[in-house]
């Protein structure tokens, strides 16, 4: 199947809208599918899903807007971590809050580890070299049980080009970052952070939306397919949404 078409189940996951509602919206014309399956299964264009995803007003889309915009804009101090120290203290505060409602040494330790890896990656790869605004967007959306992270850094393609000059697309770079042990920081034995992220997501009730440049990836529990799609509008740096899917 083309990566430009998405099954209704995945659309439901990405948008946080039930399959029944999507079927109703399809019938009424509010949000139409493209039927191409042999049994009339509903498929959606990724570009339509992306437009829908980015149209709502929420913190996820403030982050997307921040990394899409040409020059960036000032963020509320509550969601902006200029330095790693600020990020670390807010990450620990989130760990404490989540630990009140979920198993601290189980799912909380994993989700904080994943957020810690992604957030710290932004500082590791952009230290002294931020293109414009330094630091990251970091917010926990309690209603959707999602952690949103974003930076206006170099992005994975520029970072990996230091060691793989032949790379020329964000999709290729993203695939390498999630599957091979490689680092843009040459001569250092590192570069396993995103492999760890993938492994934790696949083995636990979590999901991840990750974007760098014009490459978009959605991974979830028990799904190691790693389908990378191209978005209409590229972003600067990286964007991630880590969602806790099921809670006891």
């Amino acid at each position, binding site marked *: 199947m083309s990566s430009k078409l998405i099954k209704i189940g995945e659309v439901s996951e990405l948008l946080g809208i039930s399959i029944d509602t999507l079927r109703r919206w399809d019938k009424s014309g509010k949000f139409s599918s493209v039927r191409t399956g042999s049994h009339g299964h509903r498929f959606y264009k990724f570009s339509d899903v992306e437009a829908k995803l980015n149209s709502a007003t929420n913190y996820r889309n403030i982050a997307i807007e921040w990394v899409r915009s040409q020059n960036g804009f000032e963020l509320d101090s509550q969601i902006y971590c200029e330095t*790693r120290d600020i990020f*670390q203290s807010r*990450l*620990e505060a989130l*760990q404490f809050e989540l*630990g009140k409602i979920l198993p*601290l*040494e*189980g*799912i*909380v*330790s*994993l989700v*904080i*580890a994943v957020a*810690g*890896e992604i957030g*710290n990656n932004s*500082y*590791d790869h952009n230290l002294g070299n931020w293109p414009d605004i330094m630091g990251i967007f970091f917010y926990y959306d309690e209603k959707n049980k999602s952690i949103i992270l974003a930076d206006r850094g170099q992005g994975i393609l520029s970072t990996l080009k230091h060691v793989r000059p032949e790379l020329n697309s964000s999709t290729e770079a993203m695939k390498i970052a999630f599957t091979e*042990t490689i680092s843009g920081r040459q001569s250092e*034995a*590192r570069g*396993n*952070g995103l*492999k*760890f992220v993938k*492994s*934790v997501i696949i*083995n*636990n009730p979590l999901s991840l939306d990750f974007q760098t440049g014009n490459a978009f990836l959605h991974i979830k529990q028990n799904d190691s397919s790693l389908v990378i799609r191209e978005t209409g509008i590229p972003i600067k740096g990286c964007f991630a949404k880590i969602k806790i899917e099921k809670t006891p």
Partner: protein
Amino acid sequence: MIIQLKKFGTTLVSRPSGKEALLAFRPMLNQINENEEITIDFEGVIVLTPSWADEFLTPINKQFNERIQLINTDNSSVKATLSILNQINNKNNL
């Protein structure tokens, strides 16, 4: 010698803090006798990532290798981190 990781913090996440932990602890490592066993105790650690572990545990593992024993590794992020470092370092104990 027993290394209690909780003495470095309970949310062990970033590379700089792992690197700093190793630098601070280096004088203690230099005092270890030739045949002395080293126990790394994960009790009390709430979050561990491969970034922190790679800066602190990987060098210790390279230096002392078979003399290292890991205990209290039940925490989910500790298990996941050790598993990924195992795959990368292709070793049995770390």
